[in-house]
């Protein structure tokens, strides 16, 4: 069979598809990656949107990329470089601000301006979260067990998981359950009292999710904030030199160095299935390409409800995928600026502009923003996570000019009034109105404005529902439940068809883990001649 074509065709050249392809290629398999768009990277993409201005259109920071993948694929040799982005700046409406850099003592000093007890609690909180991150990190690279199967291999996995849990001490064990079930606001209330601190921390729990800081289940993502590993150090976020697209290209180059073929501007129309087994793909052009396995980096809905025939899948599975929650909640507004913005709270240029800048001064602010979205409108005063990549990487814009990249929430995929194409600029105006309260002169320095709505994320980037994580990262859709109960091991009801994107464990974010895990399972099946 393999003689007739490829060992694997990867549908979609997002970062996970490329990671899966690279691992398969590294193992000596003949691999073809097919990307619908002209550029690689999927949501981890950098494009020259306006002459001289390179926007990292969707994802904007790199914190979760697994260090083992960076190492194993030797990404630095292929151009991957992270610039640490450790400053955190939260301007407040009253002109005050919370600003600190990665240094622990500096953070404590900054927080003590708001609350002494918070400052005292900060380091033990960080230590606990870091311990939790260290506990969770190996689980990211684990293939989730099945809770129903009694196969010995599955029981071994369960035992491994049990042993992993036994490494926790009592405090960590309870913390784990609390983080899985509590809202970030409730969890943080146990530790802190000052609003800017709690708001800033809770925001990491709601990013990309149609939930508010008071929604149970959002506490879990607090851990992710502490998982950003760069050169082995926890809790540092980073900006990829050249934008996140440069990361995608470094993976692509690594893959190509292993002999992987990559074709862009190649739209896959169907997965070809014969007798319950995937045998290749059919392109929009009508061309058919056969392969021993097909690996989909597309999200679960696109993969199972669009690329294959429903009649090739069990009804229960189709129902599960239909029920998989992928309603997008965020948008992006990218600005090309004449000069650096001057914040009312801290007008001069300085290191506070180099990190993550958060518009979300208190929990009520974010919760109210969520309330608007619940009822089908974008937030009147959205939560914004902003950064100025040009303060770190001068190659992204013409000399003296700057880029402001804004992640905006909430922007629900389904609007009650109007459509996103009709309301796109209104949404952009709302965002600019919001930041104008913090940067009074902002309108004077805007050269270009790119507004990306969830509709655009669906339409242009192919993420169903405009969900940046291929599906909500809520506990009912994580680990052995992602994307469907019983189907969390990257395999699908169609033999030789695999899932390798964020719709599989451990989910979204620029992590690479789904791609690497899927490749591992595929290679195992190939070794056992199951495919």
């Amino acid at each position, binding site marked *: 069979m393999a003689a007739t074509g490829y060992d694997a065709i990867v549908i979609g050249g997002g970062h996970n598809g490329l990671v899966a392809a690279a691992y398969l290629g590294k193992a000596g398999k003949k691999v073809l990656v097919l990307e619908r768009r002209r550029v690689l990277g999927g949501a981890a993409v950098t494009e020259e949107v306006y002459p001289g201005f390179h926007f990292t259109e969707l994802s904007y920071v790199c914190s979760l990329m697994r260090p083992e993948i960076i190492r194993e694929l030797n990404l630095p040799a292929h151009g991957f470089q992270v610039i640490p982005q450790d400053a955190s700046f939260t301007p407040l409406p009253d002109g005050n601000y919370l600003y600190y850099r990665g240094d622990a003592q500096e953070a404590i000093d900054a927080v003590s301006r708001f609350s002494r007890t918070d400052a005292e609690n900060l380091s033990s909180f960080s230590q606990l979260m870091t311990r939790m991150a260290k506990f969770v990190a190996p689980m990211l690279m684990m293939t989730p067990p099945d809770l129903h199967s009694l196969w010995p291999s599955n029981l071994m996995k369960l035992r491994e998981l049990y042993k992993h849990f036994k490494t926790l001490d009592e405090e960590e064990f309870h913390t784990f359950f609390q983080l899985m079930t509590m809202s970030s606001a409730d969890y943080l209330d*146990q530790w802190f009292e000052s609003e800017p601190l709690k708001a800033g921390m809770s925001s990491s729990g709601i990013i990309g999710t149609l939930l508010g800081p008071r929604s149970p289940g959002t506490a879990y993502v607090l851990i992710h904030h502490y998982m950003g590993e760069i050169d082995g150090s926890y809790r540092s976020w980073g900006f990829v030199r050249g934008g996140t697209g440069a990361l995608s290209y470094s993976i692509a180059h690594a893959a190509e160095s292993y002999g992987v073929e990559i074709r862009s501007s190649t739209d896959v129309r169907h997965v070809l299935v014969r007798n319950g087994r995937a045998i290749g793909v059919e392109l929009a052009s009508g061309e058919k390409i056969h392969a021993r396995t097909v690996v989909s980096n597309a999200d679960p809905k696109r993969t199972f409800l669009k690329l294959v025939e429903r009649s090739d899948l069990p009804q229960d599975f189709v129902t599960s995928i239909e029920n998989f929650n992928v309603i997008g909640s965020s948008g992006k507004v990218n600005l090309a600026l004449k000069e650096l913005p001057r914040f009312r709270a801290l007008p001069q240029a300085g290191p506070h502009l180099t990190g993550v800048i958060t518009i979300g001064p208190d929990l009520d602010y974010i919760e109210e923003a969520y309330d608007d979205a619940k009822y089908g409108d974008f937030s009147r005063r959205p939560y914004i996570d902003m950064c100025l990549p040009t303060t770190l990487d001068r190659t992204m814009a013409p000399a003296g000019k700057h880029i402001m990249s804004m992640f905006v929430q909430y922007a629900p995929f389904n609007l009650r009034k109007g459509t996103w194409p009709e309301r796109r600029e209104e949404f952009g105006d709302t965002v600019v109105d919001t930041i104008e309260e913090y940067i009074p002169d902002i309108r004077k320095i805007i050269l270009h404005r790119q507004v990306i709505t969830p509709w655009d994320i669906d339409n242009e980037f192919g993420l169903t529902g405009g969900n940046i994580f291929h599906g909500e990262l809520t506990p009912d859709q994580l680990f052995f439940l992602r994307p469907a109960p019983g189907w969390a091991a990257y395999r699908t009801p169609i033999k030789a068809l695999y899932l390798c994107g964020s719709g599989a464990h451990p989910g979204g974010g620029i992590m690479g883990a789904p791609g690497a895990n899927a490749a591992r399972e595929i290679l195992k099946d190939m070794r056992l001649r199951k495919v």
Partner: protein
Amino acid sequence: MADGYDVVVIGGGHNGLVAATYLGRAGRRVAVLERRSVLGGPATTEEIRPGFRAPTGAALVGMLRPEVVRDLQLDQHGLQLIPVDPVVTSIGEDGRILRLWNDPAKAAAEIAKFSAKDADAYIKFHDFLVGLAATLDPIMMRTPPNALAMGTGEMLYYLRFALRARRLGKWAIGQALRFPQMALRASLGEWFETELLKATLSVDALLGRWAGPWSPGTSFGVLHRFWPAVHGSAWAIVRGGTGVLTDAIAAAARAAGVTIRTDAAVARITTTDGRATGVQLESGEAIAAQVVASSADAKRTLLGLLAPADLELEVQRRIQHMRMEGAVAKINLALSSLPKLKGDDGVAAPRIRYGPTLEYLERAYDDAKYGKASAHPYFDVTIPSLLDPSLAPSGQHVMSILAQFAPYHLRRGDWKTEKGKFADRVVDRLDELMPGLRTAILAEQVLTPVDIEEKFGLTGGHIYQGEMSLDQQAFLRPVPGWGQYRTPIQNLYLVGSSAHPGGGITGGPGHNAARQILHDWGRAARA
């Protein structure tokens, strides 16, 4: 006082009395100390006007453990349950009525008037939840495990439990893992299309809870709605009023040799070297005991009745953060007559619900999030006198209403000024649904969370002695590390709803705690 008791139980609520009875039957000398002059805590019946007996707290009993009923022979002590059927009559935005019967087929026939698809789904939904509840049921009557230090026996039990759960089948196991964690809007949306049905089931999960149908983790509560079916019973009222249940347990307690004292408010728990030694009453009287079992909530017990120096700061911090903010207000009405429900078709409606859409429920919660009483509250009405005419003079009625949200903490104003307005909003709406209701009111009793706290001693006015959210369940209840009824003070136990399996009239905490106390006693005696 060497001739004290083996055990003093603080609080004569139903769980305190259940624990006392089990301990008494095991041969311990037990005294129950109740602050009020009546027993039962929120499980009482009160005359709100001569001849009108209303449930001051709980109106319905559904989760009462059959083991407790059997062991304590409560039926011989006068307990008689009258099933509420239809279990709910829910009113939609357009005035249409959805009636749910205990019998799933009969309920499906009503649902079919809205959607044939939903009618089919309801049968499957019912079976799924009853199956899941049946699987989980034994856990209700066990001390939650200390997961990190499980003994072999405990471990084997849970392995067997897992194998038993496997019998649910692959599909149901998958659903069982995700359903409880989901938001009602999401989970019910997978099953049903009829808004009124989804909203009606949501209220079952949300009553007394600090959450909305958009909040993840709320679907778990729907299980309670179907739980009685596990034992072939149904949601019910107590003949003669909820207080009769308390009387029955108290009679069983006395038969077991338990001393019960009312008007005996405990001022503090006395301790020596980290061990509880008894209690001191507000009157100054000291009562010595080997074990103190508190059916007061965790905050009142550990923060209110102990001296601050008795507890480590870390434990105090955890207890302080147990979420216990009351969400619900109780309104009891004495009615000269029972006006007809609009759209009435002659079928009795002993329980009426208004909360027509998920968005309506969520918006009511939105207000509470920002410290406001709901502008448009939803409510659940029980008319016990329809099932038991002895509760009111002939032809007249008592009505018991739970309305939400009435947050304990109001950001603006206080309940003194808001109470009347909130009750009016509920009664006005009800008057539109049952024209003539307002003019039939002979007496009105309104209990806001502040009143509930004052009257029953429930901190925050929380009717479940602490949020029944997933993070405060099982071994995490009341707080992580103390899920086995024990407390950091040796010989001091929690026996009320702050402990597993939590709130509602179940008797579960009292039963389990008594067993734990006896178990520990046996171990201490052997040592």
